[in-house]
């Protein structure tokens, strides 16, 4: 039982990463420990039995070379894992770039069809064209998210810091999401301080973060009457933004992972199939890239509050 658990722990990761036995750091580490113990015992016996200084020096040298070569195999194993990770990030980045060209073609082609000449289309045709348009937009958003993730992972996320008025951006976001909230039977209550201080951040990214918070709150509040409280306030040397919903909340066991990429809480995945689990991961990188902090409080069945704070200029 125990040995099978150890076996699993050592080998499972390497098998999943497609690493051979002699490239697998977990195995090599155990092997090195074993060699260490054996060589100490061996050296002890040799010294005790023969007591020839030259033989002792020779034995110790052989053991050192052995340990050195196992050590170098371990380093190689790690190197290989790091390489695989880099290649994966590059692949995602290249594939996403390549996907963008045909996706723009699809978007613009449907734009043309749904543009001026709508009168020659039947309502069914319009309906399906709108479906194509919406799905194209979803795909573009997903590709953009994947590109962002690969940039974050390779430490190359573009953050274009500018003096930014968050209240203007928030008003635009609310205008854009108003009908979406209405469709979900959800009320948006907005409280914005007068004279919100300027902050240094990337206006495009911060807009996405605000959209993401509010969009999540609307989507996951559920079909019962939702109320979402959005607030933007000056607080000491910071500007504080928060979105509070009265939805189902996040289970305790999921709370630690909420900012991980591709993570979706079990109770929302049941309600909503749309969503990639990338939004909050990107949001965290964007806020931290603007020297701010991000977080949330949540209680199951009574709702969640997501917030960020950014230092004012």
């Amino acid at each position, binding site marked *: 039982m125990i040995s099978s658990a150890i076996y699993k722990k050592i080998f499972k990761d390497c098998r999943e990463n497609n690493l051979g036995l002699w490239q697998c750091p977990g195995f090599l580490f155990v092997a090195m420990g074993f060699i260490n113990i054996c060589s100490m015992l061996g050296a002890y016996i040799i010294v005790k039995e023969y007591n020839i200084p030259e033989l002792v020096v020779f034995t110790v040298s052989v053991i050192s070379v052995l340990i050195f070569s196992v050590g170098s195999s371990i380093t190689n194993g790690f190197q290989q894992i790091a390489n695989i990770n880099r290649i994966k990030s590059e692949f995602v980045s290249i594939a996403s*770039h390549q996907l*963008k*060209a045909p*996706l*723009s*073609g*699809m*978007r*613009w*082609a449907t*734009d*043309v069809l749904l*543009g*001026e000449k709508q009168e020659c289309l039947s309502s069914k045709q319009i309906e399906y064209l709108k479906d194509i348009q919406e799905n194209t937009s979803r795909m*573009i958003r997903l*590709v*953009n998210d994947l*590109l962002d993730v690969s940039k974050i992972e390779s430490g190359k996320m*573009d953050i*274009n810091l500018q003096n930014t008025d968050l209240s203007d951006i928030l008003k635009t976001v609310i205008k854009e999401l108003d009908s979406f909230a209405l469709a979900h039977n959800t009320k948006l209550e907005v409280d914005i301080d007068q004279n919100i201080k300027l902050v240094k951040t990337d206006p495009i990214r911060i807009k996405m973060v605000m959209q993401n918070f509010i969009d999540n709150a609307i989507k996951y509040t559920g079909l019962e009457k939702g109320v979402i409280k959005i607030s933007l306030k000056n607080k000491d040397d910071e500007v504080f933004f928060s979105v509070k919903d009265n939805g189902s909340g996040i289970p305790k066991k999921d709370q630690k992972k909420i900012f991980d990429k591709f993570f979706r809480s079990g109770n929302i995945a049941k309600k909503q199939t749309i969503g990639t689990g990338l939004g909050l991961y990107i949001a965290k990188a964007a806020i931290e890239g603007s020297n701010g902090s991000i977080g949330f409080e949540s209680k199951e069945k009574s709702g969640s509050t997501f917030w960020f704070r950014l230092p004012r200029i």
Partner: protein
Amino acid sequence: MDNKKKILVIEDEATLQKALNEVLVQEGYEVLSALDGISGLDLILKESPDLVLLDIILPKMDGFDVLKRLKEKGSEVPIIILTNLSDINDIQKALDLGATTYLVKADFHLEDVLKKIKELLSKN
């Protein structure tokens, strides 16, 4: 209309070229098209359009080189960069080389592109 504004689209993706052409003609502009950098540059110099939409990744000569040549020749035609490179560095490079503004193709609907074109043309 004699004073029809002339717009040149330099873009190698046929679908995008076609879609842009269609809406721009509908809006009453005269539209010229080029599918690569060299013929695009020729058309700018010969036809002196009022506005150029320029892709970055192009066959024969890329958008950056087209911008460089235009700068050397002292051309002042306003240029909108059409790109799918959303890398800040690439966009900044194009703006430094004299492009007026840029838009990321996948992120824009055609009506947003039209809005930007109208805005620029009314300025000049």
